[in-house]
């Protein structure tokens, strides 16, 4: 499916279930999300994290509702399943999309300014570098007899400084390779929206309405 539409669909689903209280739909969405996730063959570790990490806020929310308010078990169940629906639907979208495809699609289909698209891509490519940079900063501190903990302002000062200089370098690098803000560009890979991309979007949303209203009326 076209990346831009895929993310639009995920956001619309998340928005809609934020305002409805049908826990079975939440479960249904989570299951569909999980099937899509499983189809992308994630590692066991990632899968385990997907189950465990949402458990903390989900349980916390449910317990809080049960103990602190009189909204009842139904609402607690809705909130618990809603968190899993968010996470699994969101992951189904992200795990099946390459960042570069998403960026190209956002640029070509959603027509966001290309400087945002490539700025985002550049920042994403910097992530592993930021992690190794933090290790290097801490080592540099140790070498000079200064231990930098994760709460040390110096660590952040250096990390922010490094990021600033990278962003400047990135901007210079892009400019020197001919990138000009708001100038037209050609695209080697054309990302198109096909009729069935719209089809999936519309049919999915329609089915969601049917499920929500159908179950609500019961």
């Amino acid at each position, binding site marked *: 499916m076209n990346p831009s539409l895929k993310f639009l669909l995920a956001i619309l689903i998340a928005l809609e279930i934020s305002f409805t209280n049908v826990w079975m739909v939440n479960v249904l969405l989570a299951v569909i999300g999980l099937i899509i996730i499983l189809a992308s063959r994630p590692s066991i570790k990632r899968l385990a994290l997907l189950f465990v990490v949402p458990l903390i806020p989900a349980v916390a929310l449910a317990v809080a509702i049960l103990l602190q308010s009189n909204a009842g078990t139904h609402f607690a169940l809705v909130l618990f399943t809603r968190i899993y629906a968010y996470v699994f639907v969101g992951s189904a979208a992200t795990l099946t999309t390459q960042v570069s495809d998403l960026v190209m699609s956002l640029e070509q289909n959603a027509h966001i300014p290309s400087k945002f698209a490539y700025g985002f891509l550049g920042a994403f490519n910097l992530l592993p570098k930021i992690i190794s940079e933090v290790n290097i900063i801490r*080592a540099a501190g140790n070498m000079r*007899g200064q231990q930098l903990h994760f709460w040390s302002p110096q660590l952040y000062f250096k990390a922010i400084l490094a990021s600033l200089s990278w962003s400047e370098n990135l901007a210079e690098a892009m400019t020197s*390779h*001919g990138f000009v803000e708001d100038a037209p560009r050609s695209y080697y890979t054309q990302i198109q929206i096909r009729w069935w991309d719209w089809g999936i979007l519309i049919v999915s949303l329609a089915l969601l309405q049917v499920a929500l209203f159908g179950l609500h009326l019961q």
Partner: protein
Amino acid sequence: MATISVDHLSFSYPTEDGQTPLILSDISATFASGAFTLLTGPSGSGKSTLMKLISGLYPHFAGKVMAGTITIDQRPVSQIDETKRSQMVAMMFQNPNQQFAMDTVERELIFALENQQLAPADMMPKVDAALTYVGIEALRHRKLNSLSGGEKQKVALAVIIAMDTDIILLDEPFASVDPDARQLLLSKLVQLNQERHKTIIISDHDLEDYAPLIDNLYVLNATGDQLRLLTPEEQSVKLAHFKRSHTHQVALSAPDSSDEASIILHQLKLSAGERTLIDQPDFRFYRHRITLLTGPNGTGKSTLLSALSKLTAYAGSITVNHQEVSQLRSKQLFLQEGLVFQDADQQFLNVTMAEELALSMKNSQKIDYFKPKLDAFLKQLQLDQLQDQVVYSLSGGQKKKLQILEMLIMATPILLFDEPFTGLDFASLQAIMAVMRQVATDCQQTYLIVSHQLFGLESLVDYHVTLDNQHLQYVEELA
């Protein structure tokens, strides 16, 4: 075909209190269309600044033109439409890590061509041709992050070739490139100049090999207020005078039985991604010795230093003073060894030079030795007037000297140096080597130095180790 002329140009990086110290002051020059020009001058004289001004990156990204103009074919650079300009001028940066926006080699090339609004169908042939021209087809799908400095510069040249600009600017492009890659890149540049009539300006400290290649030699003085075109006679004198010492004639000894091991490698395996860099059954670096480590780009010299400093995971064993590096806590490890990073900025923890020095003095293991000597060292390195300056605003060479000095002051028994001499002019190089020599002897330190720059090193090093085909080996000469 394009003629560049610099006309009474003055340029400044205004400071926060509104002052405008001039980096370049009233300089003029003409770079003829199709000429191959070498630009040289001491570190910090403003060569990079001039290059970035010609390419149009400045004053767009930093600084202010105080007077004068730069024109390309009589049109001021600042008035040329940005897209047009990027089709006329391309630039290769000093730091190989700072010139790419995409993740893979192929995508970077495509990105540049998309910016030029080339039709999609014409892109692949251009990408293929550029990669073939530089001889790096094998790197096509590699991640840029995983390439060595020399490989990155080859990719940078391929991008420039694909962009097919008339003017090619190269800002000390060989600072972290091994001699073989340097030769290859230079020969490609000559070819571009002769066959495709590109106008080329290259800045470099190391003037060796240029004599038969260049048309003109410009010298920028230390204060950036004189840019002079040498006459053909002066040019040939200067180039002939500059000879990297004939290092192949220098014999060094090999370790003998009296040497005591300081760092021991055992069944060591280092890799980058899927590529094995080092596979070494047994190897020793010796105590109280200065060992030079050389080898082609991308063989894993920096990775070895990084593993010795617990910054890269390794398989097998590395012991420093009989303790396994991976099992030592960082704090303990760095009481025994220090690493002088390739990128000086990574070393700095504070804002001004005075603060940097104070931190090293506070935690030095040999404070009594350094306290009376610090001022003399600063003077010797010409850093004494710069104490209040923000370290990040120093020139490349000044940063390097400060970085080395502050790590010397720490006086750890072992010091690892990753390309400590890049971007240093001749005088700075001599000065920093003298200081290193003195401190190593007085404080009985063990040094391991990775360097491409071999000039003058015979007076500093005891042993020479080469890394090639995944193996470390002692050799008895500097070559």
